[in-house]
Structure formats: C-alpha cells, structure tokens
C-alpha cells in the first residue's frame, strides 16, 4: 500500500516519453510500410503529449494540458489527411512501400 500510495517520480514519465519518442523515430526510419510509418508519427506525437502532461502536472500549470488538446486535434486532422493520401497513393501505385514512392525527386 505504502509503495502504491507513493507518487510515481516525474523522471519515469519523462523516460517513458523519451523511449516512446525514440521508438517512433526508429520506426519512422526503418519501417517500409507507409501505414506503419504513419503510426510511428502518431507514436511520436503521443510521446510528446505525455511529456506535456507530465510537465503540466509538475508545475501545476494548465497550459501544458491545453497544448495536448491542440496536438490531439492536429493529430486527428493529420490522420484524416494522411489516410486520404495513403489511399490515393495506393490507388495509383498499388503499393505502400515507402521506397517505391519516390516521386519527389528531380
């Protein structure tokens, strides 16, 4: 009980956030499927959200919480747009491999 009633230290939250973010980055870099890449981005955003909330709690400031809502909102919009792009890409190229989608070169 005593152990449970104790607060989890701030650093743990931050560590978790960092780990999640790093996972997102690595996933973004090494995964080949566009949807997985997309999910990695969401992972990074949520890692950042976690550190926002952590700091908001730490400093008893509400700004961080509000920021999280903003990020979530943007993420939702981004998800909608991103998924639409993914569908469009799949329809034209019949693949979701990022390496094959290299239209953005000279």
């Amino acid at each position: 009980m005593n152990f449970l009633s104790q607060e989890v230290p701030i650093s743990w939250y931050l560590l978790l956030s960092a780990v999640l973010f790093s996972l997102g980055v690595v996933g973004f870099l090494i995964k080949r499927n566009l949807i997985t890449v997309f999910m990695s981005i969401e992972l990074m955003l949520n890692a950042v959200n976690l550190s926002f909330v952590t700091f908001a709690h730490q400093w008893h400031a509400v700004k961080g919480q509000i920021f999280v809502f903003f990020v979530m909102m943007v993420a939702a919009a981004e998800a909608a747009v991103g998924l639409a792009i993914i569908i469009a890409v799949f329809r034209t190229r019949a693949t979701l491999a990022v390496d094959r989608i290299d239209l953005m070169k000279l």
Partner: protein
Amino acid sequence: MNGSLHLWLIPLLPFAGFLVNGLLGRRLPKWTITTVALLAPLAAFGVVLNAAAWIYLRGTIQAAPACAMCGPGPGFGFPYVETCPFPWINIAALQVDFSFVLDQLSLVMLLVVTGVGFLIHIYSVGYMSDEEGYARYFSYLNLFLFFMTLLVLAGNALLMFVGWEGVGLASYLLIGFYFQKKSAADAGKKAFIVNRIGDFGFLIGMFLLLANFGTLTFTEIAAKLGMDPGWNGGVVTVIALCLLLGAAGKSAQLPLYIWLPDAMEGPTPVSALIHAATMVTAGVYMIARTHVLFDHSPFALGVVAIVGAATALFAATIGLVQNDIKRVLAYSTISQLGYMFLGCGVAAYSAAIFHLVTHAFFKALLFLAAGAVIHAVGGEQDLRKMGGLWKKLPVTFAVTTVGVLAIAGFFPFAGFFSKDAILFAAFQQGAGGKALWFVGLVTALLTSFYIFRLWYLAFLGKPRSESAHLHSTPWSMLAPLVILALLSIAGGWIGIERFAAFLAPSVGARAVAAGSAHLELILSLVAVAVALEGWLIADKLYRRKPERATQWAAALPGSYKLLANKYFVDEFYGATVVKPLLGASKYFLEWVVDVGLLGGMAWLLAGIATLSGTILQRWQSGNLRSYAAWLAAGAAAVLLFLVVPWADILASLSAMHFGVVGH
C-alpha cells in the same frame, strides 16, 4: 528701376518649347508646333532686348568702371548678376551657384544667339515643312537655344560647362537628324567624340582653376588674378592652354576641326545656326570670358594666335577645291573662326567678338541662302551640277551676293570692318604680329577666291544639269534671308572703336598705337585690294576661261589631290588614332576584357553553381526515409549543440592547459 531683368527666362523659355514639342509634338497639329517653336526664341529675344534697353537707359556705356569684371557692383549694379537663391553645389570650400551674369559681352552674344536664332527658326519653318520629324527638329532647335543661352549667361565655369556640353548634345542630335542615313549618324558621333577631347581640356582647366583659385566664378578669378601680380605664366599658362584645347574642340580649330565639315550632314538651317553662327563661336566667347587668364600668360596668347592663323589659312586652302556647296561654307567657317582666334590671340578680344557678330550675320546668311538653293534644286549640293541659278532665284542670288561681298571683306559690308579690325590688331603686335597679319592677308585672298568661286559656280554661267522645275522658295525662308542680308550690309557700320568702347568693361580696352589712323587706312586698302584680287582670279577661272581651272588642277596634280582630299587629315587621324583605338577596343577590350575577363567570370560563377547543384541534387533522392534520416540527424546535431555544455568543457580544457603550464 528696381525690378528684376528676369534673365532666367532667357534659357527657360526655349527649354519650355523643347519640353512641349519634345513630349507632345507627335500629337500636336503642325501649326501648334510652329507657334510654340517660334514663340520661345522670340520671347527670349524680347527679354534680351529688354535687358539691352535697360543697359542703354542707364547709360552704362559711359558709367561703367574700367574693368567691370574685376568687381561686380553691389545689388542691382552692373554687370548685372542674377543668382538662384539655392546654391547648386556646396561642399566644403567649393560653392557653385546658379548665377547668370549680364555684362556687355554676354549681352552681345545673347543678341546674336537669340536674334539670329529666331531668324533661323523662322527659316526652318519653310525649309523643314515637308520633312519627317518636324516636331523633333524644333524641339532640338529649342533645346539648343536653351543650352546656348545658358552657356552665354553662366557666371561660373561649371555652369558654362553645362551649357557647353548641352550645345554639344544638341549639335549631335541635329547633325544626326537624318539618322537613317549612316553618314549622318557617323558625322554626329564624330562631332561628339572629337568634342569630348576638347571638353577634356576644359575639365582639366576647371580642376586647375579650382585647385589654384578655389573658385569657378569668373569675377572672383579675375579679382584674385588682379590682386596678385605674381600670377604669371606657370600654372596660368597651363590653365589657359587647357581652356584653349576646349575652345579648339568646340570652335573647330586645328587640330580638332575635323568634325565640322562632316557636321554638314545635318539640315542646312542647323548648319547655319549651330555650325556657323552660334555654337562654334562658343570657344571664342569662352576665351573672351576668361580673357584675364590669357592676359596673364603671353605664351598662351601666342599659342591662341598661331592656332587661329594656322587654322584660318589651312581651312581656306581646303575650301578652294571643295565641290559641295555646304562643305565650302564649312571650311570657310573654320577659317573665319581662325580669324577670331587670331583676334583673341593678339588680345583684341573686342575685334574677335566683333568678327563673331558680323560672321554670325553673313555666314548664317550664306548658309541659309545655300539652303534655299539646295531646297530649290531638290537636294542637290554639288556645285558642279548647279550654275545659272541667278535667273531662277533672284532674291536668293541677291542676298548671296551681299553675303559673298561681306565675307570677302569689301567696303562697306560687315565683314570688311571686323576682319580689318583683327588684321590691324595683329599688325600692331611686333614682328610676330606682322607675320600673323600676312597669314591673315593671304587667307583673305583665298577667302575671296573660294567664295566667288562658289558664287560663280552656283549662280552664274550656264545651268550644268537639267533641273526640270525648281521648288519655289516660301516667304518664311526669304524673310530671314533679307533681314540677314541687311544686317550683313549694315552690321559693321557701328565701327570697331565704338564696339570696343562698349565691350571694354567686359574684355578690357586695348591701347591703340598713336598715329595709327593712316596705317589703318593703308591696311584697309591692302585688304580690299587683296579681296578684289581674289575676285578677279575667280572671275578669270570660272567665268572668262572656265577651262583654265581644270587645266591648273591638271598641271598641279599633287597639290590638287592634296587639297581635294583635305590634306589627308582624316586619313591620318584614322590611321594614327581611330584605327589603333578600334583595334584596342576590338582585341583588348572586347576579347580580353569583355569576353575573357567579364565573360570568364560569369562562366566561372555559373560553373560553380552548376557543379554544386549537380552534387547537391543527389540529396534530392525522392526517398522519404532518407529525408527523414537527414531530418533526424539535423535534430540530433541541434540537440547536441544545445544540450552539451560546450562553454564549460572549453573552460575546463583551458584550465587544464594552464594547470599543466603552471606546474
């Protein structure tokens, strides 16, 4: 009379005419263009007349001090100075104002410029009526009057230089008026470039004036020179010679005269106004205006006299054999300008200005008459194809006869008095002066010969070509001719004594040797005899024994060829100056500097950009994951930079270093 004379109106009225016709001329009806173009010089002439009347009423001819140049009168005094309230240039010691000076000298010049200028404007209405670019022509002509009056009125050398360059511009534009014709465009360029050489001398002279006197105002320079008798020779000579170079360029003297004959490519009234009556006399005016400098340098004066005499003789000999009616007159102009320089060179400035005035009358008359002939025969300028025109163009013939008698120096026509005054002044200047007088006398003989040759070839004898019908000469061309003819008859009657007395406050009075009345009479008789002799030779060669002229030419093939080719001076300059310059431009400037240096630099820069682009574009792989990797790497680098305490590390490192040294 406490009002202002409004001198500023004199240049600005023609300038307004230039703006109106230059900007709106294409849309205006012809009569409006004519009205504007004629009103501008007429109004300017009115302002000048008003100023002249003011001077006359004040009786300044008697009241003026001995040397008005030495000290401007206070307030509304004389010489009358009008200064713009705002300084033009005001840098440290250099202060230059827009100041206009009206003294006897500038008044005489203004009367000639605006008066003869107005007459030639009227003439142009008839002469140019069928030409393309009617408005353009008159806007240039008004622009010329603007700059010329600016030049004349200028109270300091810099403002004079503005007018000086401006008349050069107007001259360039008008010589190249028929710019579709290559020869006309080339002649314009030649005039401009040759004048640049003279302008260079003028500029150097101005710099030296500024360095040595600290001012460019004529009156102040004169005052400083007058205060210190030590100013003699040396730097004053250098300044005077630089100014002489400028004057020689503008007034077509040796060795820079070559542009004037080619300038005849312009419309004939332009030749009359700019290249005979006014602009080319600017050099003479400039020397008279800065005469104090020349007075302090006998050497420079001698150079002026020799240049003048040499030019007079040289140009007259070329004029003997030219067949283009305008070219004969052009060489005659150069020769007469040589007389004026000779007058300046023997310090007879008033005689030089007197000849300037009479020359403006009779040479403008001769040019305009030549223009009437050319107009009548439909553009033909070759004397050999004219002849017998006196019956068809009686008025033109009559006025030309007056002009011919005037330039040849027959009593009582204008040219007699002024040429005589110059020759007399030269004769009084010791042995060297007598040599100059002799050169002048020979020139007078040649002058008389070539002008009567022109007269015989153009008007007398039998028509040498079939001109089916002659264009009639409109009244607008005849009226100025008649007025100028009257002036060419009566212009000299004022006499050099009265004229010199009038000008004395501006250019200084010359002491006339005592007991010289007889001498002057004898010299006059000699001059007239010489002129008569020239007439007789011309009469023999071109009336009584026309075959004799060709015989003579055949007997002296070398001399004739030399003269007909104008001493090969153009060829000489072409080989020694133009060709090397063109070669240097082509091989050095174009190929080495332009293609090699500038082009090479451009290619180098373009090459660097292309090369770096080729390398950098490999980044642009289109691979999403490589972009992301670079993004991550960049973020990592920024983090590394921000998070790692570089300052502390550096501090501890240096501390370690010192610690080691300390031990």
